[in-house]
């Protein structure tokens, strides 16, 4: 059932990028974030752009889906750019009253925009190519060494997978309840804020009731199957590093090396 619902923004596929071990992808992503902030001149971004373009091409995801990931933070990017543009001190290029643009400001603004863009493009590539379930699997194994110092790695990832698992169910439920109330003439999108908030009551009450009911049923079902009885649970899907994971890591290390090397090229 879960397969038929778009969750988050996962775009199913069978490509190399999809098949990579989630741990590889998470670690490479973390390192990639660091690398984006290490870039010191524009040539570095050309290398990053090449990396992203190759990844997107390999994953066979329509580029428009990747670019769509930028939309929600567009405002944030623009505000950051404006702040950098107007509030950096240095050689003044243009001035109008209190507003002034400096050469350094332009440089910072462009850098900030590029950094954030690459950050989002990269992370959305991770969530586009990795199903939420394997993402939590990956996180669990990555966090498991910390279990020794008392971090409940398994419980955390279980909570996360349950939460993720129930997003589509609750969305479906909300849709059903909204339709049922609309069929009884409920009007959700007219009137002022107060009357709109009031119109939510016929949706929220049944939704909460059903969420509690489902949570209760799930707890019973888990207990019926002896969840939590054994100390060391084994997993149906063992994660295994494969050749392609090695390949991906090498490609990424090369990219890192290139970026660092480029940093030494003096930019004007």
């Amino acid at each position: 059932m879960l397969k038929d619902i778009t969750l988050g923004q996962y775009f199913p596929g069978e490509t190399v990028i999809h098949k990579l071990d989630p741990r590889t992808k998470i670690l490479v992503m973390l390192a990639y974030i660091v690398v984006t902030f290490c870039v010191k001149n524009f040539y570095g971004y050309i290398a990053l752009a090449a990396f992203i373009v190759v990844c997107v091409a390999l994953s066979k995801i329509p580029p428009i889906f990747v670019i769509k990931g930028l939309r929600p933070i567009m405002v944030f990017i623009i505000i950051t750019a404006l702040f950098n543009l107007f509030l950096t001190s240095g050689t003044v290029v243009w001035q109008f009253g209190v507003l002034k643009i400096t050469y350094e400001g332009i440089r910072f603004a462009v850098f900030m925009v590029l950094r954030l863009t690459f950050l989002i493009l990269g992370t959305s590539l991770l969530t586009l190519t990795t199903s939420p379930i394997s993402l939590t699997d990956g996180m669990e194994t990555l966090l498991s060494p910390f279990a020794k110092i008392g971090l409940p790695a398994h419980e955390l990832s279980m909570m996360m997978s349950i939460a993720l698992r129930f997003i589509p169910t609750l969305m479906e439920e909300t849709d059903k309840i909204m339709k049922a109330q609309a069929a009884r003439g409920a009007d959700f999108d007219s009137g002022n804020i107060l009357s709109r908030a009031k119109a939510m009551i016929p949706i929220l009450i049944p939704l909460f009731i059903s969420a509690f009911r489902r949570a209760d049923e799930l707890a019973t079902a888990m207990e019926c199957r002896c969840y939590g009885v054994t100390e060391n649970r084994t997993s149906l899907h063992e994660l295994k590093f494969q050749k392609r994971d090695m390949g991906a890591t090498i490609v990424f290390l090369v990219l890192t090396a290139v970026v660092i090397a480029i940093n030494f090229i003096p930019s004007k």
Partner: protein
Amino acid sequence: MIKLENVSYTYMKGGPFEKKALDNINLEIGKGEFVGLIGHTGSGKSTLIQLLNGLIKPDCGRIMIDGTDITDKNTKMRDIRFKVGLVMQYPEYQLFEETVLKDISFGPSNMGLDNDEVKHRAEFAANLVGLPKELLSKSPFDLSGGQKRRVAIAGVLAMEPKVLILDEPTAGLDPAGRDEILFKIKDMHERMGLTVILVSHSMEDVAKLADRILVMNKGNKEMFDTPENIFRNSERLTEIGLNVPQVTKIVDELRRRGMPLKEGVYTINDALYCIKKALSKGEELC
């Protein structure tokens, strides 16, 4: 009363999970008809009934309700929803008010009627579905499953729709509750001249109640005919994951073994009559 012309509907159009739910449906349902709607899971039944009261809009085609084109942008959807009452699957999960009476009143008060009229309609609807008066002041969450279901149906009936659509109204009820709800529906259909569309997985129920049966298969209209003509095609029905009433199976088997019985028998009374006739014609059996 209801007319569909070349109606198609696709879920998640353009996305990675695109799914065609209805493919070029043409259909006409007359005033006061009782239509049974059957089809296996995912055949497009639920999509079809949601189209009929404007909860979803078709990709193309026209839907006429009582002479109004509901696919037209200027049609007020709420007016259509008051005219076409839809009881969704497991409708008891939509209850939310403090008391049963208030919950039943939700629909009619959305219509902008005055309080007396709303109360009158709610009490009338509660009576129709057989809810005793003392339950009306209780919380709907304290009722039994069957009673909750009746409250939900009453909530739609209180809007006094001209067409009543029910999506598996008896799913999950015990046999007594099931028979009672079906009897009430049939009763209302006869007494008030309501046009009824009943979605059901029970061939027996549809056979017993419907004037005509609409069979859906993979988003297409497979058959739309009288029960007699529908249940003649037991082979085709089995092929598309459906069934025929048990009594039809018995009669078909008897015919296969050489008894001269007609095709498309779907009620016990009819079967009894046919078998008796066939027996009396043949040699005397003791």
